[in-house]
């Protein structure tokens, strides 16, 4: 196929340099794509679509209150990162998650970071995800966020930044794993001696991470994945991970906590004890005894059992306190405070609207900035300044003044692009990257992660709930190739 006209102006492109020539790590792929006959290519695309359809890779979206299973759009052209660069990013993510876990543990215990004036204590008072019920408790190994999905973006000059950390119930890893399966099936020849690092150790590492926090280390742990049920948008992933780990996928009603604060699941042979719960249910719904009383998705008594040390819960209840756009703004200080090191990966420059100076700057520049509420996920409730109307800006100014603590603002990033199939040709589309970091007795970082891609020309919204798609992500070892 003809790639000679592929040029990207004003953005960093993941596969090609400014002259349109492929970067070192993408040379082999570029050469291969060029040699591919268009018919051959459309065959492969059809094979891909069929593969994801039969695998039933879907997520659920709600349109006018009706749930619809949508196939996750998948783009054939992978996103490539050189192994040498990835090694640095991995180190940065390890450092970051280590610091975040120390920070959460400190907040729920001594609050030394507040006493030392590094983190303002008043931020906790209206923090949506701070759980007073967790005060004075420290989970096994001091780890709160066992599974973290951090979103990375690359700016116009090629610098990688962390855009946000998802410490509550990050999702997307099943798509990462399935995307690789599809690519291997459709382009086997590309994987022969091209130095692409494998991704499929993830489920084994997840199992080991969960096993390492079991309250009964001597026995084979009884691990379960707790799902809100098949109408949840990520149910496909819950079922996938449970199956790959060979553990039971349970719903809240399958579990109960007895008077001795032990957790059991209801089986046809009677109660069976549970050691570790990988929960994909939000804090608020986890335990009607402690949180929302009307929740049917959790199990009464889970918090009792957790605090008694009879069951491990991943991610720990309350871990979301660090999954807050305002806390995010302090992560560089948090890393320096706990690790005594400079952050290896930077934050996107961030203004905190809670601070009067910074708020003034934000209110004056609403047409330039991206404004985000503290606790929304999935790209909801944001203002994208350069694409907003005056009316929307006035509305956001009102919201910020009414609740300044709840908002941060960032410059509009020139998100990097990656060649992507458009209607009939290959065109640049904006991407981000969500690697997953596992913390237990050991720390693991995925080789790559889930690359999300905005499918509309010029769009910056990559979320699958809003029409984004995904790509396979290759970490390519150029030295050995």
């Amino acid at each position: 196929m003809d790639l000679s006209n592929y040029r990207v102006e004003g953005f960093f492109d993941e596969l090609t340099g400014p002259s349109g020539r492929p970067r070192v790590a993408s040379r082999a792929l570029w050469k291969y794509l060029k040699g591919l006959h268009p018919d051959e290519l459309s065959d492969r695309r059809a094979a891909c679509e069929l593969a994801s359809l039969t695998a039933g890779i879907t997520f659920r979206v709600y349109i006018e209150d009706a749930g619809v299973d949508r196939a996750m759009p998948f783009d054939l052209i992978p996103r490539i990162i050189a192994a040498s660069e990835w090694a640095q990013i991995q180190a940065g993510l390890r450092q970051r998650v280590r610091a975040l876990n120390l920070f959460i543990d400190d907040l729920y215990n001594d609050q030394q970071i507040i006493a030392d004036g590094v983190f303002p204590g008043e931020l906790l008072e209206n923090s949506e995800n701070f759980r007073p019920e967790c005060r004075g408790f420290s989970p096994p190994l001091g780890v709160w966020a066992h599974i973290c999905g951090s979103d990375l973006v690359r700016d116009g000059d090629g610098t990688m930044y962390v855009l946000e950390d998802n410490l509550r119930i990050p999702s997307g890893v099943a798509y990462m794993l399935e995307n690789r399966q599809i690519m291997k099936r459709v382009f086997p020849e590309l994987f022969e001696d091209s130095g692409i690092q494998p991704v499929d150790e993830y489920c084994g590492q997840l199992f080991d991470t969960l096993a390492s926090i079991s309250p009964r280390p001597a026995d084979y742990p009884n691990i379960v994945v707790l799902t809100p049920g098949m109408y949840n948008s990520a149910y496909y992933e819950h079922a996938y991970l449970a199956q790959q780990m060979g553990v039971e996928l349970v719903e809240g009603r399958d579990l109960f906590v007895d008077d001795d604060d032990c957790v059991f699941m209801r089986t046809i042979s009677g109660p069976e004890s549970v050691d570790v719960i990988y929960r994909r249910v939000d804090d608020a719904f986890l335990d009607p005894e402690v949180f929302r009383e009307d929740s049917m998705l959790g199990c009464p008594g889970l918090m009792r059992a957790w605090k008694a040390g009879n069951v491990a819960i991943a991610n720990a209840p309350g871990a979301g306190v660090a999954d807050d756009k305002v806390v995010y703004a302090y992560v560089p200080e948090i890393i320096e405070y706990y690790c005594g090191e400079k952050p290896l990966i930077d934050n996107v420059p961030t203004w905190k609207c809670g601070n009067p100076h910074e708020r003034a700057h934000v209110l004056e520049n609403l047409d330039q900035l991206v404004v985000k509420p503290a606790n929304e996920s999935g790209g909801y409730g944001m203002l994208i300044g350069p694409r907003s109307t005056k009316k929307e800006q006035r509305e956001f100014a009102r919201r910020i003044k009414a609740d300044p603590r709840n908002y941060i603002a960032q410059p509009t990033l020139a998100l990097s692009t990656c060649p992507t199939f458009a209607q009939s040709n290959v065109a640049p589309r904006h991407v981000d990257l969500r690697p997953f970091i596992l913390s237990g007795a050991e720390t693991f970082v995925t080789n790559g992660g889930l690359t999300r891609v905005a499918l509309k020309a010029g769009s910056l919204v990559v979320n699958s709930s809003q029409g984004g798609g995904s790509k396979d992500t290759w970490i390519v070892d150029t030295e050995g190739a």
Partner: protein
Amino acid sequence: MSMLSRLAENLYWHGRYLERAEDLARLINVNANLNLDLPKRIAPGWEPLVRITGAAATFAELHDDTDERTVVRFLLSDPDNPGSLRNTLEYARENLRSARDLLPREVWEQMNSLYLAGEDALTGPLSKRRRHEFLRELILDCQQIAGTLLGTMSQDHAYDFILIGRYLERADMTTRILDVRADDLLPDELGELPPFDAIQWMSVLKSMTGYQMYRRHVRTRVSGPDVLAFLLRDPHFPRSVLFGLGALESLLHDLPGDDDQALRAVTRMERRLNEMNLEGIKGERLGELMDELQLEVADIDRCIRQTWFLAG
């Protein structure tokens, strides 16, 4: 790791709903044939099917006419009929969905295509010829799922629960068919037997695919009491009630736990069935007996739920 009660319950209901879908398809096709074979004045028409499926009250609220179009639409796809074939297929699929990892992948795929074929056929108008064809294929598809399970699935507890659901549903359906049909067919006065009696009893056999086997094993001409005895008590025919109870007995034996109330309920029903005197039985009395058997089925269902499923 023992099986989750919720999954056991889902598989049990999957077994029940899939059997229900298949039996409903058989009933409709056989009834259509029967009506073609009989003169208008004695043809049973379509109303008995509404009674067999236990939907008489729902139907009466919605419709005045019991003509073929109305009844068949009601049974196949009426959104106001919770027991419609379309709903039954959906329940069979949804109950399988959460437990699909316990079964061979083909089974889920077959269930999915069956459901999609149903959605496809049952959303628009359906000519009689297309209808017959579709129902015939549906019966074969259900058989294919049963066959795939038999040929590829380990006979573990997951498999046991599907079969328990299937046999219990079949026993329930058989007693319902006999209840309604016998009411129409067995004269209360020992008078003249209707001339088309044999044809109608043949159709009862056919709705349970029992005609050929009856011919081979019973070796008498088709008559009411013999057909009754065959469908209720034949030890070798897989759709007879007694055969189903025997299967249930050995399946329940395999299940964990020391609570044998379900097993006791099954043996109680077997005893009841064996003690029944079917000689010279009349319509009304048969109806009472079938009602008793249906209560026994409901009791077995209750015991199974109490023993192995999530406390309701």
